[in-house]
């Protein structure tokens, strides 16, 4: 249960084509993250899978059955919305039990499932409260509870953590990953935050303007980005891109080097520059170095860097971690000459 395939799926709102023809396979039990900048069509794609939007063309298969025309309730998928979409006038218990009530399940069984879900999600003490009396994280858990009691074939999450503060987000991220481990159900998770994508996903789908740029495991995307967009999107701080003469020396239109793959030296190296801002995080130091004739480079140094604003430094890329791109942005794969 929980295998989803999209075949040549497109979606247009009036004249605006939001999703050009798209193929995607999601395997049973996988944690798939759709990631991309805001407005790239992630939510639309998720809503197409959920059935809340109709496809303009193409087919959606769930567990080998053509589900393109199947109404949302019959697809066996559960969705957690960005705004949580809890029912404000119902208690937490009734919220969680609502899908079961709609399925006309036996009340004793309903109660059993709600109690079980509440236990997993630490909601037992809040079952008789209204959503308005809960904190953001608790509301989030109620929304998840409402999804899990149905025992769906797959979970769909649309930016579920974007309304939470940073500390809570890290917690909920862990809880959702934990939940995926214990349920082993397919999950499709939409986010614009590449950190969430990297930390949670089995498989990341990078989207830009409705198009799939690359599909792969987090480390595949990190190590071998298919193009400049993916290279720039995945990883934090962002990859440095260098064009022009310097790139030509490496036989590419553009070269990319991640901040953590730059070696800093005060005596010699490939590029000579001046330290601008230095951000001290304790474990790491991010240096923003201006090199004449290039965009500022971000360099990540472990621990204390021992250099200060205005110092002259040398930076060398680690050759095996250098990414080369053609003029159209595609990565050049063969080894450097």
């Amino acid at each position, binding site marked *: 249960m929980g295998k989803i395939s999209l075949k040549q799926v497109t979606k247009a709102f009036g004249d605006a084509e939001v999703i050009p023809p798209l193929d995607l396979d999601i395997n049973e039990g996988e944690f798939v993250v759709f990631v991309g900048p805001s407005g790239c069509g992630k939510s639309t794609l998720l809503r197409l899978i*959920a*059935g*809340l939007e109709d496809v303009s063309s193409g087919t959606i298969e769930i567990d080998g059955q053509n589900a393109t025309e199947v*109404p*949302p*309730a019959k697809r066996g*998928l*559960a*969705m957690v*919305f*960005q*705004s949580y*979409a*809890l*029912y*404000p*006038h*119902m208690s937490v218990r009734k919220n969680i039990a*609502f*899908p079961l009530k*709609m*399925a006309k399940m036996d009340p004793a069984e309903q109660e059993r499932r709600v109690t079980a879900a509440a236990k997993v999600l630490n909601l037992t003490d809040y079952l008789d409260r209204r959503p*308005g009396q809960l904190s953001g994280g608790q509301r989030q858990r109620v929304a998840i509870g*409402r999804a899990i009691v*149905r025992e769906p074939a797959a979970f769909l999450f649309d930016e579920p953590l974007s309304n939470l503060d940073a500390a809570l987000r890290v917690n909920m991220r862990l809880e959702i990953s934990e939940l995926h481990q214990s349920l082993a159900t397919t999950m499709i998770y939409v986010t614009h935050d590449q950190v969430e994508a990297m930390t949670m996903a089995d498989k990341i789908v990078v989207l830009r303007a409705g198009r799939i740029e690359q599909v792969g495991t987090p480390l595949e995307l990190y190590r071998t980005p298919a193009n400049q967009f993916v290279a720039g999107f995945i990883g934090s701080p962002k990859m440095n891109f260098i064009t022009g003469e310097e790139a030509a020396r490496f036989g590419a239109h553009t070269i990319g080097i991640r901040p953590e793959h730059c070696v800093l030296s005060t005596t010699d190296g490939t590029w000579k520059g001046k330290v601008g801002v230095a951000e001290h995080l304790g474990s790491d130091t991010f240096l923003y170095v201006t090199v004449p004739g290039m965009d500022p480079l971000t360099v990540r140094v472990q621990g204390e860097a021992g250099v200060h604003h205005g110092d002259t430094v040398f930076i060398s890329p680690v050759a095996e971690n250098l990414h080369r791109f053609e003029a159209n942005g595609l990565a050049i794969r063969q080894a450097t000459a």
Partner: protein
Amino acid sequence: MATAHSRAAARLMISPAVLLLLGWMIVPLSMTVYFSFLSYNLLMPGMEEFIGFTNYEFFLTDPAFFAALANTLLLVGGVLVITIVGGTLLALLLDQPFWGQGIVRILVIAPFFVMPTVSALVWKNMFMNPVNGLFAYFAKALGLQPFDFLAHAPLASIIVIVAWQWLPFATLILLTALQSLDQEQLEASEMDGANFLNRFVYIVLPHMSRAITVVILIQTIFLLSVFAEILVTTNGGPGTSSTNITYLVYAQSLLQFDVGGGSAGGIVAVILANIVAVFLMRMIGKNLEA
């Protein structure tokens, strides 16, 4: 910043308005109370004398009073039911996207701008008239005997007329409530397997309950004092079959020139309105909290 000082200043500054409003209410009310204890008929000026509760006794033991009380409740209840059910259905309809939505919405609101006397006369003469009315025309076209609505079903006819006037108000308030419903809640319930009826009962209706409460409260206040529609259509008749309390007070004090009796009736009406208000607040006031 509600410090003690600013609160005292606030009280001081609103006190003129409060005093004015209080005086505005107290003076006529106490005059009415005063008149209600007098034997005071305009046909016999200068003969006023204090007669205690006799006016009240007279008013409350008059069989017309109980008829009027029942009619008032039927009128208020009937109009409320029609406007809220009809208003909800219309609001659901108008919330759907369709061509010419803006124009249709304005048209729906139009009856509210027609004066009660005018609309009642239009209904009386152009629709319900057994000879020239539109309904009579349809009845005759179908080969049926025309029905004289105002003679044979006077109260029901007045309920229809008043409901027609208040339907736009209810529709408008309920439509705004409907439009403020979070679409994601509807989508969530759709994914949870709720069909249209379930979505209406479990999601839409609870969301609209506060707006429905507001409609009930406001309409009740106005419906307790319906008068013009009765005056221009049935004059409270035949007999007292379409007389409500307001009309009864008018008939007592102005048609019979009995100021004392009319005042007593007025006070009774005020007390009744307050009883209804207390009941309403008890029943639905909790909807307005939170």
